[in-house]
């Protein structure tokens, strides 16, 4: 089985080396793991750090935002016929060791198309990182919103996700661009992908600063709310037909 770890990174030179070292030490039975860092037009040494750590690098010539960066990695995973792709944020919030929970869930029968790493499936551990109250209120609102699409998830903003082949086909063609996580779930639901969750622990970002300030947070909520409602009312997006190994090399 082949797994591609997709790391979207924008000015993450501080946290990337440690993250890639952790990923290199990952061992999964019967799984060939490759890593690709998607440098989203960084102004720092993100690309150099990633290359020095032995990762493959997709260097975007301009900043596309998290959605565009993730889609680039998913597109590559689909073209190179990977069985799974996992999104791991470049800021180090997603411990690579937790990836095994996503894989375990993906291997269960019936296999889901998309597995979300959720912080809220188990009782909160006071020693691990927790989101701020404002963020938790936002997450609660998004959960309510996604219930409109009959999708029950506990962590709609989690970017720690595993994509199966059908999800790769869908998101290669359609992936939302800014603040994409909740909207991508609505798109996946509309395309009738099966979505599951697996419990994971997350930690605080290991370097750099968050790009989401108070104004961006307000815009985030408004935009995501409209986007989910739009996805709910418009015709479902179909998963493109076609061979998964068309351009495999």
């Amino acid at each position, binding site marked *: 089985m082949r797994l591609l770890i997709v790391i979207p990174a924008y000015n993450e030179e501080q946290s990337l080396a440690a993250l890639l070292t952790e990923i290199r030490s990952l061992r999964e039975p019967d799984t060939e793991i490759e890593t690709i860092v998607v440098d989203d037009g960084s102004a720092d040494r993100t690309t150099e750090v990633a290359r020095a750590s032995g990762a493959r690098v997709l260097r975007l010539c*301009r900043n596309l935002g998290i959605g*565009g960066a993730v*889609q*680039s990695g998913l*597109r*590559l995973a689909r073209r190179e016929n990977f069985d799974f792709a996992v999104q791991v944020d470049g800021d180090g919030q997603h411990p690579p060791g937790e990836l095994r929970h996503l894989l375990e869930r993906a291997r269960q029968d019936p296999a889901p198309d998309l597995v979300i790493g959720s912080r809220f499936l188990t009782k909160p551990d006071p020693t691990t990182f927790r989101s701020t109250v404002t963020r938790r209120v936002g997450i609660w609102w998004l959960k309510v919103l996604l219930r409109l699409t009959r999708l029950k998830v506990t962590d709609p903003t989690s970017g720690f996700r595993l994509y199966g082949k059908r999800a790769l086909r869908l998101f290669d063609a359609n992936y939302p661009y800014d603040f994409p996580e909740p909207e991508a779930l609505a798109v996946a639901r509309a395309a009738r992908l099966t979505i599951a969750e697996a419990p994971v622990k997350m930690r605080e970002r290991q370097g750099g600063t968050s790009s989401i300030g108070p104004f961006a947070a307000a815009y985030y909520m408004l935009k995501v709310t409209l986007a989910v409602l739009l996805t709910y009312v418009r015709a479902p997006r179909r998963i493109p037909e076609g061979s998964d190994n068309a351009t495999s*090399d």
Partner: protein
Amino acid sequence: MQQVTDDYLIFALACLVIALVMLRLLFRERITLQGSMSYMAFLAVLGLMAIFPYQTTILARRLGFTLMSNFLFCTAIAALALLHLRSLVTVSKIQLRSVTLTQELAILQEKLDRLERASASGEQRAS
């Protein structure tokens, strides 16, 4: 009536000047003919209104406007809103294409880099 026509002719001249500026931009290839057609049509309608104010007044009255100026404002606002909408569609399309192009370029560049590295290491082994 003659006075009214003279007043409006200034407006027609203004439309003509803007049309000439657009033509200049077209000749210099700063804008495309395809993109400027709807703007040209808008200018032509405004110009015709200025040249034929009597007929325009009749049209305005038929449409329920008591003041000619209100009719002109409404026509201009509606036309500009349509032009803006058209620009929005064009810009959105270009934005999406630009994202895809950026992604494809990055994927091709990565593939090329890998092939070059493989070729270089193959040459080293051969020598």
